[in-house]
Every structure is written in structure tokens, then in C-alpha cells.
């Protein structure tokens, strides 16, 4: 059978989701952002919520996320995306609002905003790309940079005494009663991508069902920042990131009711 006979409309099994724009992304070759963007476009399309989904893009490499998915967007100041999303979701409860943030944005400068948005149980989805480095500014140390990891600002490797510990913020979020679903995923293999897609879909369904904050960390690569080829970067991630940032669900349910959380509310 000739290839020409296979490549026909009726045999199509996989193509670009319609909500993903035709623009070629500004991301480096092999960057995980592209896969996660695609998954978001697929999930939004699949759930039929294009007209009610509002994306909030961060400061960092994904600042231009709004160029690639055909929905309404708002671009937030560094770290403030969860507050911006809170503002939108509170005045427009019918909308499905998600933030898309990197590790510097979410786990460093925006720690207060993410903790409090999740603690209030805002009905939003948070997509957290953790590649353990600042990509946009040229590969500096991130809060999630591993001990010993070389970056532009830790040229001899991250040093515990000088730089402190890598931050497992997803585990912290998992402790908050306002969080409905907290999961850590990756997109380095076909199976991982399919699991990540399910986690994202569940998160959007949670937001629609007003179950509280859903938070999906995607352990990602930054081949440019790590100075590795995309294929080597995946390998480095498996060997070094996964032992410290283990893949899997951390919490799956819905935000706590007052009674679940404390024995009782204080009476007025």
C-alpha cells in the first residue's frame, strides 16, 4: 500500500487542534511549553468551552501564550496571575479561568498569590511549568533548581548554604483545603502526555463544577537553559528531576467544607 493511499482525509487520526493558532511558537526546539499548549487547546476544544474560557498568561517564556490558543486572554504581572484569575472568576463566575505560570513566576515572586488563591479555593485551573530554571531571562536559578544544578547564577551548582533548598510548592499546595485537585505530570513520552491531558481535563471539569482550585505541575525541560539537546534534556529530567519531583496525583477530590476542615465554625 502506497503512502499516498494512506494520507487521505478519511484516514486522519491525529491533527492539530483547531484552537491552536497556525503561528509558529517562539519556543526553543523541544520545549515542553508547546506540548502543554497543545493539550490545553485540545481539552478546551473537547469540553466545548472556547467561548467561556479565559487564559491568564505569566511573565516568563510563556508570556506570549496568548498568541497560540484562540481564546480571550489577559497577560499578568510577574507572579500575579492567580490574583488576576481571581478577579476574573469572581466577577464572571460562569467563565472558566486558568493561569499558565512558570517556576519563577509561581514559586518565587508569586508565592503569596498562588497560596492564597488556592487557599480560598478559587474555582480556577493553575498550570505550573517547572523546568527548574529561568528560561526567558537566560537560565538563572529558579526556586525549583536542584541542589548542585548549574545555572547562570549558580555557575558552580546550587549551593545549599547560599541558595537554600529547592521548593516543592506543589506539595505545599496539596496541603491547602481550598485545593480540589493537585497533580504532578510530565510530557516527555507519549504515555506521559496522555496522562497529563487527563489531569488537565479533570482540572477544567473541576473548575466548571466549582470544586475549588485545580493545580497541575508539569515537570518540564528547558534544553536551552540546561545546555542539552531536547532528547538529552528528557533523559536528564528523568534521572534528576523525577526523583525529587515525583510524578503522580497529590490530592484528588474537592475543596473542603468548613465541617471537614475544622470541627466547627466559630458561632457568631
Amino acid at each position, binding site marked *: 500500500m502506497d503512502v499516498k493511499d494512506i494520507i487521505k482525509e478519511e484516514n486522519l487520526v491525529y491533527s492539530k487542534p483547531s484552537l491552536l493558532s497556525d503561528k509558529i511558537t517562539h519556543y526553543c526546539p523541544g520545549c515542553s511549553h508547546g506540548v502543554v499548549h497543545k493539550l490545553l487547546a485540545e481539552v478546551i476544544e473537547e469540553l466545548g468551552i472556547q467561548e467561556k474560557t479565559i487564559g491568564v498568561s505569566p511573565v516568563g517564556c510563556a508570556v506570549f501564550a496568548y498568541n497560540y490558543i484562540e481564546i480571550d486572554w489577559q497577560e499578568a504581572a510577574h507572579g500575579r496571575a492567580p490574583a488576576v484569575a481571581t478577579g476574573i472568576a*469572581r466577577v464572571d463566575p460562569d467563565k472558566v479561568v486558568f493561569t499558565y505560570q512558570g517556576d519563577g513566576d509561581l514559586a518565587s515572586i508569586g508565592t503569596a498569590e498562588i497560596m492564597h488563591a488556592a487557599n480560598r479555593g478559587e474555582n480556577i485551573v493553575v498550570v505550573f511549568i517547572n523546568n527548574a530554571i529561568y528560561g526567558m531571562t537566560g537560565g538563572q536559578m529558579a526556586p525549583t533548581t536542584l541542589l548542585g544544578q548549574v545555572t547562570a547564577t549558580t555557575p558552580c551548582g546550587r549551593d545549599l548554604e547560599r541558595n537554600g533548598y529547592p521548593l516543592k510548592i506543589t506539595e505545599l499546595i496539596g496541603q491547602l483545603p481550598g485545593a480540589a485537585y493537585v497533580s504532578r505530570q510530565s510530557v516527555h513520552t507519549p504515555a506521559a502526555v496522555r496522562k497529563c491531558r487527563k489531569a488537565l481535563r479533570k482540572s477544567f471539569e473541576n473548575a466548571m463544577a466549582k470544586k475549588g482550585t485545580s493545580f497541575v505541575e508539569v515537570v518540564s525541560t528547558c534544553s536551552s537553559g540546561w545546555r542539552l539537546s531536547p532528547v538529552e534534556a528528557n533523559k536528564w529530567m528523568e534521572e534528576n528531576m523525577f526523583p525529587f519531583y515525583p510524578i503522580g496525583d497529590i490530592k484528588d477530590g474537592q475543596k473542603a467544607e468548613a465541617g471537614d476542615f475544622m470541627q466547627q465554625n466559630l458561632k457568631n
Partner: protein
Amino acid sequence: MGELRLMKGNEVIAEAAIRCGCDAYFGYPITPQSEVMETLMAREPWNQTGMVVLQAESEVASINMVYGAAGAGKKVMTSSSSPGISLMAEGISYIAGAELPCVIVNVQRGGPGLGTIQPSQADYFQSTKGGGHGDYRLIVLAPASVQEMHDFVGLAFELAFKYRNPAMILADGAIGQMMEKVELGEFVARQTTEQVDAQYGSWATTGKKKSRAKNVITSLELDSALMEQNNLRFQEKYRKMQQDEVSFEAIRCEDADYVLVAFGSSARICQKSVELARAKGIKVGLLRPITLFPFPSEPIARLAKQVKGFMTVEMNAGQMIEDVRLAVNCAGERNPVHYFGRLGGIIPTPGEVVEALEQKLIGG
């Protein structure tokens, strides 16, 4: 005649917000303006008009919630006091850069730093020259009474939406805390989702319809040629404000030899000073800028042809005096422009003002 009540300036900000159809308030407690959010929470407007009121984790979060809700085309506001406004500066710059309407109330206290909780007007520069990074301006309204605290909420929203620009009500601890009789406005219904969509759907994040391209709220533009165009558009907007929106009050300026220039609480004090001076036979008038940006430069320039001199009265180290001098000198006039003020939360007395006037302008 509308409903009359005896209210605090801060309380009336809350009441006016509910009545003018405000969609949301996001804030963080700080003295001397915490009554704004306290009043809103006690009024529970979510049960009456559907207005959202949320206590955020910080001023930084508050202003970014405002940014988000404003991006959705909603009438949204926050309030704070000086140190809190400094924290909001980044967010305000984003809001100005993304061309969104919102209302910010600054009930000023004395600085710098943590300073004092007593009234001050030391944030004049910060408010009228932008306050955050980049070339932007806020529409700045300076209320001098509890009634104006009420009236300016609606006015600030009107101007903010007209120009798609943040508007600030620049009050101070004295006006925020004092009680006066106030006539409350009628209730205006909040806009429905359909109305917001029809009016602001061309730019707001109302959800991408098949019929239109996606709306993106952003202040980012990496192409310098386009960013210059954005900036030129902003500047044109500020020029238009200067042309159409200047507001001021002139009290007994017609026959004045000397004119006091003062806003907000200082202007209230100066009203008494005018009376005291006139009783002494000194012909003094008061020019009270109501919009601090756009600044009433032209009326001051016109007065410069008539009077012997000006004195600004400010609860700061002399900030507005620069704008008064610019107004006078740019009109080619050379009248002396002096300043008198008290700092650190101290409110000048009417007598002190007259004394300063006599020393600096008449005796000098």
C-alpha cells in the same frame, strides 16, 4: 432630594460604590481607610446588587484582582492608603498600559515609609505624575468634603470608562475619617453580562465568540515601533483629558490680590483663611483644583494676569507648587509663587495660613 445621612468619608465611598452599580471591590486593610471595606462587608451588597467584595492577601493581590476584573469589562475598584498604594504601583502601571478602566481610592497618610496614620497630602507627586514605571497618568480627583467622596466615585468610573484609564480619588485621612451630611445618589443597576458584552465585547475578556477575533489584555509590545505608537496614543489621551476634563473651584477670586491654591482638606482650611484674611482687609481668593490631573493650569495662568502672587497650601513639603509655578511661568508671567504647609500628619490651621500669607507674600 436624595436620601440624607450623616456619614464618614470612608463609609460613603462604600455606599456610593454600591449605589453607582460597581461590580467588585478588592482591598486590603490599612489605616486610615479600613472603613471602606468594613462598610462594604457589613452592607453585604452581594445580596442586593450582586457586587463582589473580597479581602485580598495584600495590596499587590488587590490591584491585580482589579486588573483581572477590569479586563473582563467590569466596574471595579479598590482603596488603600499611601504605603498600600506604593505596593499597587506596579499593578496600576499595568492597568494604565493595558488601557483598562478602574477606580483607586487613596486615603493618604503621612510618609515616607510607614510614616504616620495621620492625614497628609504627600502622595501628590506619586498620584499626578504616574506613580509606577513608564509614561502614564491617572485621572486624579481630589474631594474636599464627604459629599464629594460620594459624588466622585460615580464621576471617577465615568471618566475611567470614557478614557479606558485608571482614575484615582486622592483623599486624605481627615476627609476619610470626618463625618458630614451627605446626600446619597439613586441606585443604578449593575450592567448585565449582555450589556457588558455589547458595550465592551470589542476589547474585554468576555469570552471569544466565533464572530470575533480573540481579545487579549496586555501591556506588552516588544516591537518598539508599535510600542511607540501605543505610548503616543496614551499621550494623546492625556492631552484630551487636559482639554476636556479640567475641574476646579474658584472662591472669591474675582477681586483677589492674592490667591491661595489648595486641594482636598487643605482647601477646606483655606476657605476659612480667606474669610480671616478678608476680615483683615486683605483681598484673598482660593483656587481649588478638583482634578489634580489634568491640572487646572489655564485658570491659574489667567489669574496670574490679575493677582500679585500665589501661595499653595499643602500637607506636604511643597509638591503642587511645582505645577502652579509651571502654570504661571509657562504663561510668561512672573508672579511670586510661595508655599506653606505642615508635614508628618499635622493639619495647618486657618490662622497659620493667613500668617504665612502675610509674611511670604505681603510682607515679603
